[in-house]
Each structure stands twice: as structure tokens, then as C-alpha cells.
């Protein structure tokens, strides 16, 4: 019997559940390793070589190298672990969130100042298209 996942129809959202955590274990633990300054230095010196020390899939490694956060999340990454990676790059939560929405950081920040992304049209896949801000 498979796990019940009533959240699979929420648009633009991957819930970090047991299946995702299993897929993403090494990806997330790699991110965790970046909490140590020595590891950050080694990673920055040669990202590919550092990644090759981890039993991650080629897809996961490629997503890290290209900083494709949506892809990392799809492949089992969790945002709080991925935070160690974008912090290593000197980037903020808001910058990273913006890149995942396809918006510029400026447009995203403006949307937040205007009250954020409305839940209207964003509750279920197939609803009327989302309006940003409100």
C-alpha cells in the first residue's frame, strides 16, 4: 500500500515527506556538511570534486552545480538544508525563493510588500490562473 498524499495537487509545491527524504538523504547531508568552514572552502575550490565524495545521483549533482533549486527540491532536497548551500554562496532566503518563482528578486520583494502571493488560484492544480499580490 502506498502512502496517502492529499497534498500532491498543491501547485508549485513539493512536500518533504518520507519518500522525498529517502531520495534526498545524501543531497541534504552534503548541504549539512557546508556548516563547517573547512568544508565550505574545499567545496568552493572544486565543487565537482567535493560532490563526487557523496553518493548522490548525477542529476542531484548537476542540480547543485547549476544552483537549480526547484530541481534540487524535486530530487529530495529540503529548503532548510539547501539554505546551507545558498548561504555558502552569500545568498538570502528571499533571493533563493525569488529564483524558484521565476521572478526577479526585486519583483518578488515588491510582491511581498504588497501582501504576498494570494492563495486565490493557488490552492489546487487546475484552478483559475494565479494573480500575484492582492
Amino acid at each position, binding site marked *: 500500500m502506498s502512502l496517502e498524499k492529499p497534498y500532491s495537487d498543491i501547485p508549485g509545491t513539493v512536500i518533504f515527506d518520507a519518500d522525498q527524504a529517502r531520495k534526498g538523504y545524501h543531497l541534504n547531508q552534503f548541504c549539512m556538511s557546508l*556548516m563547517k568552514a573547512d568544508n565550505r572552502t574545499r567545496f568552493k575550490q572544486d565543487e565537482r570534486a567535493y560532490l563526487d565524495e557523496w553518493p548522490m545521483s548525477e542529476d542531484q549533482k548537476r542540480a547543485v552545480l547549476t544552483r537549480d533549486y526547484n530541481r534540487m527540491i524535486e530530487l529530495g532536497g529540503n529548503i532548510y538544508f539547501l539554505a*546551507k548551500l545558498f548561504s555558502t554562496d552569500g545568498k538570502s532566503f528571499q533571493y533563493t525563493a525569488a529564483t524558484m518563482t521565476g521572478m526577479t528578486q526585486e519583483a518578488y520583494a515588491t510582491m511581498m510588500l504588497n501582501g504576498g502571493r494570494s492563495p486565490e488560484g493557488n490552492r489546487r492544480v487546475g484552478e483559475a490562473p494565479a494573480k500575484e499580490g492582492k
Partner: protein
Amino acid sequence: MARITAGVATSHVPAIGAALDNGRAAEPYWKPLFAGYDFSKDWIARQKPDVAVLVYNDHASAFSLDIVPTFAIGCAASFQPADEGWGPRPVPAVAGHPELASHIAQSVIQQDFDLTIVNRMDVDHGLTVPMSLMFGQPERWPVRVIPLAVNVVLFPPPSGRRCFELGKAIRRAVESFDEDINVQVWGTGGMSHQLQGPRAGLINREWDNRWLDRLIDDPEELAKMPHIEYLREAGSEGVELVMWLIMRGALDARVRTMHRFYHVPASNTAVGHIILENGQ
């Protein structure tokens, strides 16, 4: 006997801590947010709690994916601010209360809540940002803290019902502790926010405020809300709000609302804050 006098709940957005630590609290972006805590600082200076049971979640700081406890209670004498990847926050170490923490652990395990006992851990922004919001920037924190870490990162978190009942069990535990001390329970995290994917930036002001109304007046029913409603209405990270139900469960059925504040945005997040007192 020890008694629980009040509950405090607040969001724990890391950018709030960074704004304070970097001297940016008076900037136009942050000023209205910090103003929402002016009452709270005066209030807590008058209340002088001896201990806060501080319910929060760790964000891949103390717990990696190697070990993921659903409920973990900190029984140590002190807890250091965690290095979350950019150095620890410049805030004081957090003094624990090992006697009361151990007493709560033993009592609630005997009430069927299987807590994980932690004797060494660092505490991240989930715990230290609420401290900063309530106390500002003192040399030493004026309260001892029992950290209660709840897993809300790896789905599923504990249910709202389970959290609410744990609050009740913590209250029974505190009230059976012999020392005459003033204890508060704090719930942190939330309110609506989503940090990941194309739906990042979701905020649901109406839903958040209805949720606050029900937290005050109808918590038993609110505790039955399934996770899917949090995820759909309040964003993938909005589910942190179940932690507020532990605070609410530790209070009387009827409470006095001393303060209520709501503000959008802090970075990606809707900030909620509430102070409730037991009514006797």
C-alpha cells in the same frame, strides 16, 4: 507549586534576528514589526517569569537527517546559539532548567508522550529570535528556558490534536513540580509562509486571522484541523503553526488576550504574535 501563568506565541523568522543583530531595526522596513513587540517587552518585564518552556523547531542545525525526533526536550544547564552557516547570532547563551526539564520529561512520558531527551544541543533562530523579540538585546537573558523542539521539517509533523494534548500534559507536569515558580509556555513559528517552489511567497491574511480567533476561543476544535489545510491555505512552511497548539493546550480553556499583533511581511513570512493569560 509551580504554575503556568501565561502563553506567548510568535513567528521566528531568521531575517528578524539578522535585522536586530545588524542594527537595522529602526529602518522603515523593520520598524513597524518591532513596534508590535513594544507592549510585550513591558508586559514580560512586569510578569518576570522564572522559566519559559519554549516550543520551536530546529532548522537543520542541531538535527540533520541522521536523527529526526518528533518531540525533543532540552534538559541541559545551558544551550549555545547555533552556527547556522554564517556564524552564531551574537546573543547570550540560553540558561536551561535541568530539574524542571527532567521532571517534565518523566511526567509526560508517563502520560504516554514519548519525548526524546537531549542533554546537549545548540539552539538556532527558531528559539533565539523569539527571545530577542520579547527581551531585546540584554547582556543576559532574564529567564531560564526549557527548549522543546518539534519536528515540522520532515512531513508529517505531529498532528494539531497531539500537540494540543501535549500542552495539557506539560501543564500537569509543571503543576506537580514542588518549587514555587512562575512558568510560561511559548509557541513559535508560522504564520502563513512558503519558502520553496514556484508558489513561494504565499501569504493568507484572512486565514491567519481566523486561525488566531479560533486559537483564543475554540482551540479544541482548531486542534482537529488536518495538515492538508495548513499546507494548502498557509503554505508548506505554515504548518509550523501546530507548535502554537502546545502553548494553547497548556493554558486554561478560557484565557485573557493581553496582546495581538499581525504584520506582513518579514522577508517571506506573515508574522503573528499573541499573548494569553490564564484567567483565574
